[in-house]
C-alpha cells in the first residue's frame, strides 16, 4: 500500500530514539504489526535498505512480530480467531463483533550499540 511513507516514519522514530540514547549504530528494529494492518514486510525491507543509507540505522535488521487478529462477539462473548476475512461469530452467528487484537502497528524497541567509553 504505502510502504514508503510507513518506512520513512519507522526510520525517523528509530533515529530519534537512537540519538536520545547516544547510539553509534542501530542493529535491530522490532516492529509489532497486527494481522489487520495491511503492510508488506518485503517492501518495507526494500525501502529500508534504500532510505536508511548514510544513517546509523543502515544495515539494521527489521524484525516483524505479527499479531493474529482476535474478535469478540458482542452477543455471546465468544472470542474467536479469523483467517483472512472477517466472519460472523462461529458460535451464535452474530455480526456484532469487535476487534480485540490484530490492529497493532507500532515500533516496540530498537537495539543499539554505543561507544565503549560511554558504557562505563
Amino acid at each position: 500500500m504505502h510502504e514508503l511513507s510507513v518506512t520513512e516514519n519507522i526510520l525517523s522514530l528509530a533515529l530519534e530514539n537512537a540519538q536520545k540514547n547516544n547510539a553509534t549504530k542501530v542493529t535491530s528494529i522490532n516492529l509489532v504489526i497486527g494481522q489487520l494492518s495491511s503492510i508488506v514486510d518485503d517492501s518495507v525491507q526494500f525501502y529500508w535498505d534504500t532510505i536508511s543509507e548514510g544513517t546509523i540505522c543502515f544495515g539494521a535488521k527489521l524484525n516483524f512480530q505479527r499479531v493474529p487478529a482476535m474478535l469478540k462477539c458482542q452477543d455471546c462473548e465468544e472470542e474467536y480467531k479469523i483467517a483472512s476475512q472477517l466472519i460472523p461469530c462461529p458460535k451464535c452467528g452474530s455480526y456484532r463483533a469487535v476487534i480485540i487484537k490484530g490492529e497493532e502497528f507500532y515500533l516496540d524497541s530498537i537495539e543499539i550499540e554505543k561507544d565503549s567509553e560511554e558504557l562505563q
Partner: protein
Amino acid sequence: MSAIRVPVVEKILSANDRMANENRNLLNENNVFSINIMASPGAGKTSFILQTIKHLSDSLKIGVIEGDTAPVTIDADKIIKAGMPAVQINTGGDCHLEAAMLSDGLKQLPLKEIDVLIVENVGNLICPAAWYLGTHINLLIASVPEGDDKPYKYPNIYRGLDVLIINKTDLTPYVEYNIDYFRKGVELLNPGLITFPLSCRTGEGVDAWIDWLKEQVNQYRQGK
C-alpha cells in the same frame, strides 16, 4: 560490543497523528465542521460534493480540499465554478492524503468564512484508511457498479467510517449487485453504520443525506 535494547513502544504513524490533532484544533478554533471523503476512483466523489454544495449553498458556506496524485485542477475547478472556495493538493504520486498535506491545504482556505470543510481524499480503498487527517467524520462512497463484495475485500476502510454513502443506485437494475450481501459485510465491520443509498445523477435519496449532515453541523455547533 553488545547491543542494548531500547524500548520505544510508539505508533509508527504517531507523527501523522500529532499533525492530525493540530488540524482538528485549527478547525475547531474556526468552528469548521469537516468531512473526509474516501472512495475508489470513479465512485462519484466530486459529483457527490457538487450535489452537497447545491443543496447547502443557501444555508452553509462550504470549502473543499481536493487531493489528487497528479498536478491537475479538474476537480477544484468544478467546485470553484459552483461558487465555493477550493484548494487542490497534489500528493506527488502518493496514494493517500496525509495530515501534513491537509495542514498545507487548510492554510490556503479562508477558514473563518467556512462552515463545512469537505476533503476529497485520493481515489483509493486501501491507503487513506491508515492516515488520520483530523477531520470530524470519515465518509466512504461505495458505488453500485463497483460490486457488492467490496466490504469483504477492503475491510480496513469500512472499519473507521462514521457514515457510508451508496451512490449510483439508479444503476442497480443494470448490474449484478446484492445490497443485502453488501450490507451484511458492512455490518460485520462497522455495526450500525449510518448509510444513505442515493443517486447523485437523479438526486434520489440526496435529501436524507443533507438532512443528516445539517443535523451533524448543528450538533457540532451546540457541542462547542
